[in-house]
């Protein structure tokens, strides 16, 4: 089938303002959007810049806006979009460096602010594993899946209007540790998330959950953090 691929272009060394380039491409409906971009860069215009690595949805490099919503370019096939008009734009809310590449700096700073690492230096005396029941392990399974692609945070209306908001991805990564029965740092993380740019900025628009390529129930995770802050109880 023939598709029209409209790509957001911004070359900082040449362009004053962004433009859209249109490529007409003959392709298979089962091709990934990433394949189309690779084709453009390899065979049509080498200057098109975008990130990608694993090409099957586990590394999180190629999150972008495809036909208006956040997706991984490697996880969406042409036929999934149901149209031959495809528009590809960079993530919203982060500074565009070049074409589809955005500055991930603020995103990573928010991630780091919630202490996204295991805290418990009290290693079991026998040197073996901390014991954890399958139920306790299941409690935070969903939020361990995050690949930090930023699709959630950059789909969030609260983040668009104020990038000081810690954002869904950071809360997801805090959730992963707050609910880990082995971890001892929950209070410190909750302290951060209880601030004015913490969980209370979540307006439950659900864009994050809809955008997550790993199908993490993000809004639910945020609500669970709110619940802990309200009740003071970690189940």
């Amino acid at each position: 089938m023939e598709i029209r691929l409209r790509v957001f272009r911004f070359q900082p060394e040449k362009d004053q303002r962004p433009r859209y380039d249109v490529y007409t491409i003959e392709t298979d409906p089962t091709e990934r959007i990433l394949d189309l971009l690779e084709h453009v860069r390899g065979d049509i215009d080498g200057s098109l810049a975008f990130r990608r690595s694993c090409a099957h949805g586990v590394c999180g490099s190629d999150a972008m806006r495809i036909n208006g919503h956040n997706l991984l370019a490697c996880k969406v096939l042409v036929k999934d979009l149901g149209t031959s008009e495809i528009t590809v734009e960079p993530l919203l809310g982060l500074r565009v460096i070049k074409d589809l590449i955005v500055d991930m700096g603020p995103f990573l700073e928010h991630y780091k602010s919630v202490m996204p690492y295991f805290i418990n230096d009290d290693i079991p005396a026998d040197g073996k594993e901390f014991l954890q029941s399958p139920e306790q392990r299941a409690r935070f399974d969903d939020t361990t899946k995050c690949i930090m692609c930023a699709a959630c945070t950059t789909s969030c209306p609260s983040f668009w209007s104020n990038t000081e908001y810690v954002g869904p991805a950071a809360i997801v990564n805090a959730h992963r540790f707050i609910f880990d029965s082995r971890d001892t740092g929950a209070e410190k993380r909750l302290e951060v998330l209880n601030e004015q740019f913490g969980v209370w900025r979540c307006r439950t628009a659900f864009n994050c959950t809809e955008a997550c390529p790993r199908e993490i129930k993000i809004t639910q995770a945020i609500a669970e953090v709110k619940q802990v802050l309200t009740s003071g109880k970690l189940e």
Partner: protein
Amino acid sequence: MSTLKTTLTGYTGYRGREGHYAFLLHRITGLGTVLFLVIHIIDIALVYLSPKGFLDVIALYQTTLFGIGEIALVFCVFFHGINGLRIAYFDMLKPANWSIETERKSTRITLIATLILWLPATFFMARNILIHNYGLFGG
């Protein structure tokens, strides 16, 4: 202000699902309601501060244009209330029930419930306008 541009691009251009539009509508209906509320407090206060002014305002409210505004206000209040309950229910009481399916479904139910309340109200308010402003229905 580039974040303002980003925000408006996102609000209007991002292809979210039900939750995105529920968020926008919640905001718009909330701001609409609070705007009317401020005006309403002042106009009612006129009964004490300036009863003459009160009568002028009431006359203004009775025009068709304000009548339509009133119908919109009723929509705002119903939607904002029901949607607020929906959010509070999941957000405070049952986070575990909050999946993509329940989000989409609950938003649709919210809209339907709003319409169920609003449409009959609209009927009566429109009828009032037609009776009093246009002399219909034997007014």
